[in-house]
């Protein structure tokens, strides 16, 4: 790999430019008109302007991106995350034009891209899915199924979603009573009262495993991350390791992720996402993310690796130099996403000029950001402006460091979620690691609103 096109923006573009330079690879940044003066543009060896600010006319056009790569003599392309990173069309275009795509093959991407295909793949590899029934003809059939998987269970409508036909039952009596009600509700909503049953996860955690494959069947894992603090399925805080997991469960979780992606000889970085049932100490497959993820730095911090550089090496055809036993996980790391949104105004986006930017510094503090004093946060894209990553010898030390780092962080000129992040870091539930995927919306935000 001699010259790499970076088809992305913001902190990840900057991070990839630097990783390329560290490996002696030239960088060409493909930017929109709104990003032509960005920090990534300044550090890249060359910047080309793809199109106007609007993403559909610049970052989201696979042909434009591959044309830019060819016209600037690039032999590889890194898509970052978001935008085109999981579009098979881009991978195919790269493959057809002799450009190494920094990511999985088009075939792999299709195998894990669709939710149904991915679930079949997981089932085939013996990776657990949330136990569910087929269509149920009666409350008796539902009861029989519930006995096999255990309560609580939830009814779901075969014909649709959105909460209609969903009743949570903690006992046989509740299920018998709720079944008719749910069936009636489904019939009203979708014209079809057919129900099926799933095991209900009372207290869920979002746990995911970071992996890297060489494309020949060797797949390594870099431990798990706990990303349970979410708002509307958007992660806000991510940490590694998932301190909630018992060691035996953790080992099975890693093994499942590796088995799943080995089965398709997965190439490059990927993440296998799981729902973790805290009460039952069981995990269930959700989906595969076939790209580098926003939260990859927490895994880098505890494993002492550079996943982006590793991605570039693998895409350049180098074998994975590590063995699983070489990857030692040490200490704890937490990442928070700093976003240009105002939590006090219903998370209204807050683009504009940053007039003051004082990032925290100190032991165990890492900041992945392309922002600086005087920089403009454009209104056209995702509002994340920085990832603050802190690490320490254990979770308690790391949480204390996070609190200090957040207190020291000053951003003026635009509204951000810094105050909310401070509130999270200081909350007893977070400090004592008692949260679930519903915690941020149900407990933290109301508590934040009360001040």
């Amino acid at each position, binding site marked *: 790999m001699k010259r790499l096109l970076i088809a992305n923006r913001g902190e990840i573009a900057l991070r990839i430019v630097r990783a390329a330079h560290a490996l002696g690879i030239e960088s060409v940044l*493909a930017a*929109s*008109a709104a990003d*032509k*003066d*960005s*920090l990534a*543009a*300044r550090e*890249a*060896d*060359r*910047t*080309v*302007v*793809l*199109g*106007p600010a609007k993403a559909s*006319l*610049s970052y989201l*056009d696979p*042909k*434009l991106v*591959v*044309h*830019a790569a060819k*016209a*600037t003599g690039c032999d590889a392309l890194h898509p970052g995350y978001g935008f085109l990173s999981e579009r098979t069309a881009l991978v195919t*275009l790269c493959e057809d034009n002799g450009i190494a795509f920094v990511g999985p093959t088009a075939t792999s991407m299709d195998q894990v891209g669709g939710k149904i295909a991915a679930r079949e793949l997981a089932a085939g590899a013996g990776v657990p899915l949330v136990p569910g029934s087929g269509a149920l003809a009666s409350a008796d059939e539902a009861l029989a199924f519930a006995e096999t998987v255990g309560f609580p269970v939830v009814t779901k409508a075969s014909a649709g979603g959105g909460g209609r036909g969903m009743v949570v039952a903690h006992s046989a009596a509740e299920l018998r009573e709720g079944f008719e009600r749910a069936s009636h509700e489904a019939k009203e909503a979708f014209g079809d009262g057919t129900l099926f049953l799933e095991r209900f996860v009372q207290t869920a955690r979002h746990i995911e495993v970071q992996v890297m494959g060489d494309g020949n069947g060797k797949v390594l894992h870099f431990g798990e991350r706990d990303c349970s603090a979410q708002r509307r399925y958007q992660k806000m805080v991510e940490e590694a390791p998932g301190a909630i997991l018992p060691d035996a469960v953790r080992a099975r979780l890693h093994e499942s992720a590796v088995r799943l992606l080995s089965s398709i000889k997965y190439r490059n970085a990927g993440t296998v996402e799981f729902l973790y049932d805290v009460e039952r100490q069981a995990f269930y497959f959700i989906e595969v993310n076939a790209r580098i993820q926003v939260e990859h730095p927490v895994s880098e911090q505890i494993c002492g690796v550079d996943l982006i550089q590793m991605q570039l090496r693998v895409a350049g055809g180098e074998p994975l130099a590590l063995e699983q036993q070489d990857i030692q996980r040490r200490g704890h790391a937490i990442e928070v996403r700093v976003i240009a949104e105002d939590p006090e105004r219903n998370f209204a986006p807050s683009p504009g*000029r940053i*007039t*003051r930017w004082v990032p925290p510094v100190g032991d165990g503090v890492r900041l992945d950001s392309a922002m*600086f*004093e*005087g*920089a*403009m946060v454009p209104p056209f894209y995702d509002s994340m402006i920085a990832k603050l990553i802190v690490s320490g010898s254990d979770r308690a030390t790391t949480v204390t460091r996070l609190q200090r780092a957040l207190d020291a962080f000053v951003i003026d000129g635009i509204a951000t979620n810094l105050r909310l992040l401070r509130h999270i870091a200081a909350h007893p539930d977070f400090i004592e690691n008692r949260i679930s995927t519903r915690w941020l919306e149900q407990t933290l935000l109301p508590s934040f609103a009360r001040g």
Partner: protein
Amino acid sequence: MNKKPTAQDLESLMDMFEKSDWKELDLRMEGFELYLSKDPSRRRGGSTPPPRLRGEGAGEGPAPISAPSATSASASAVPAHWIAVKAPNLGTFYRAPKPGAAPYVQIGQVVTPETEVCLIEVMKLFTSVRAGVAGTVRQIAVQDAEMVEHDQVLMYIEPA
């Protein structure tokens, strides 16, 4: 050592200048010069690059574009009333509909806003660019089959 002004200082300075009734402002400090004028025809020392905002530290401050922009490079070389035809997106610039064919337009040719003046190709997909203005083609700013970027000047037309 003099402290260099921050991006913020410059922004407030420009803002105050804009709101003032001054016509020109010439600021010179050690290692730093700034010239502002409200007269578009005024330009100090022809080759002086446009003012750059610089932060204090090495890793700070908004950056100028690293790739050369044809827009700024040739802007000063043509009469102010000529109108630039710009590339709608990145692609390869072609003057003719196919290799060996006559170019869409020649210098000195009279065009209407609808006249096709060139092609931009993106992965074998050809999009024609129209003049957008009635006038006479005065300059072609790009070599045939060269890569152009979004907003790059392709040619100049003197309006009728």
